[in-house]
């Protein structure tokens, strides 16, 4: 079921992206290479985490600010803050 394009879903949403100021950061990228199952690449509902070779690449632009990635990371390797006031997802309906 990899036919679903998360981009098409996120395209319906409204964002105010805080360019060059991501609110989530992978603390130590080397740790992700040692993580066997990399659950962030499965569980993020916005598909912000992708696997490239052994590395995990994070692009926060489509983030729905749910907090899942921070909680499921067994190595506490996700530094997670809310975006600056006014930035990020702006739900039209919620």
């Amino acid at each position, binding site marked *: *079921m990899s036919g679903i394009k998360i981009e098409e879903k996120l395209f319906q949403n409204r964002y105010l992206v805080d360019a060059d100021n991501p609110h989530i950061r992978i603390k130590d990228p080397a740790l992700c290479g040692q993580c066997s199952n990399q659950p962030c690449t499965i*569980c993020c509902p916005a598909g912000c985490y992708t696997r490239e070779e052994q590395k995990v690449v994070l692009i926060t632009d489509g983030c729905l600010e749910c907090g899942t990635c921070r909680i499921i990371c067994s190595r506490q390797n996700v530094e997670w803050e809310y975006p*600056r*006031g006014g930035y990020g997802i702006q*739900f039209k309906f*919620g």
Partner: protein
Amino acid sequence: MSEKFDAIVVGAGPAGNAAAYTLAKAGLSVLQIERGEAPGSKNVQGAILYSDALERIIPDFREDAPLERHIIEQRMWVMDDESYIGTHFRSNDFSKPPHNRYTIIRAKFDKWFSKKVQEAGALVICETTVKELLRDKTGKVIGVETDRTEGKIYADVVVLADGVNSTLARKAGFRPELEPKHVALAVKEIHFLPKETVESRFNIQKGQGVVIEMMGKLTKGMMGTGFLYTNNDSISVGVGVMLSDLMRQKMTPYELLEQTKNHPSIKPLLEGGEMKEYAAHLIPEGGYHAIPQVFGDGWLIAGDSGMFVNAVHREGSNLAMTTGRMAAETIIDLRASGKAMSAANLAEYRRRLDDSFVIKDMKKYKDLPEIFHSNNQFFTTYPELVNRSAYTMLTVDGVDKRSKEKEIFASFREQRSLFGMLGDAFKLWRAFR
């Protein structure tokens, strides 16, 4: 801003709005801080509004609140891949005012609630994220620091209504990090359709609405549920599963949502709709045992931030409003009797919660989360068995009914031993009673 307020409320969801409104109405100087562009722009819910909790705060809310449809019918579906078996309850009594619950669209509703808060006299500032709590030498909370320039603001007491992630409470050490087994991830979409289509499709009239709650194989063996709610000219559809289960498998949340939408019993209900938003949110479902300390020197916690959700009955926003209101009332009463906002005095908040339906209900189901966690047959084996049994009994094919009964009984025995079934029944009975 170096001004000092009687109270600062962090967050403009149901808990924060209930608290700020109640405090301002009693004449306290209140500052409410919201990180979204407008109140509601960061908030996600199914969403069902339970009238009672709001009525106790704004008795005449029906006059101008943006309500979608009042619920006249509740459907509970237990599903396998092809079918559902369920109970429907519909009553014309639910159409008689005052209505007991409504579907709402949170972005609209939260804006309305915030307008009421401002009319009551609170100062509401948006587009402002609170970075941390300000504390004095003894650890007492004395204000907040925001991400605005000169962002320190002081108050006698701070109400943390900053949602399930509660960055503030975590950083201050008031609450531990959420555990994957205590929180569910829900994803949802809103699909727009002409209101006449919604009404004919769900067999309802103007203003009436239907709720469908679903469980079974649609969550692929994970502990969770699905939902479908009728709004005025749209349908909200979603699915939620526990993070502890989600992280152990290979399906993404949006694939799960897509499969839910494509279930043969759901797909025709959404046919022709235009999807206009995709949202995700965490729901604190750890229950009674996961409730953290909710008061301390100069602070109180309300709503999702305090894990106040009754997952069994799909109640959360009403607990948020009730805890927000009770936090405010505790502050108001302490202030009226000239008492300090100390931990010892604010403990009264927890006592009031203990006496209310909030803690009583959460206590009643305190063991349920554990039972569903360790027994996934409730989400796979049983839903399939009951659906196949119904299919067998309702298929007319020349086989006599007694033989069909035997076949059904044998299929249950095959999937689960008699002791297993009795044990499951006992566990459920003990957890629900």
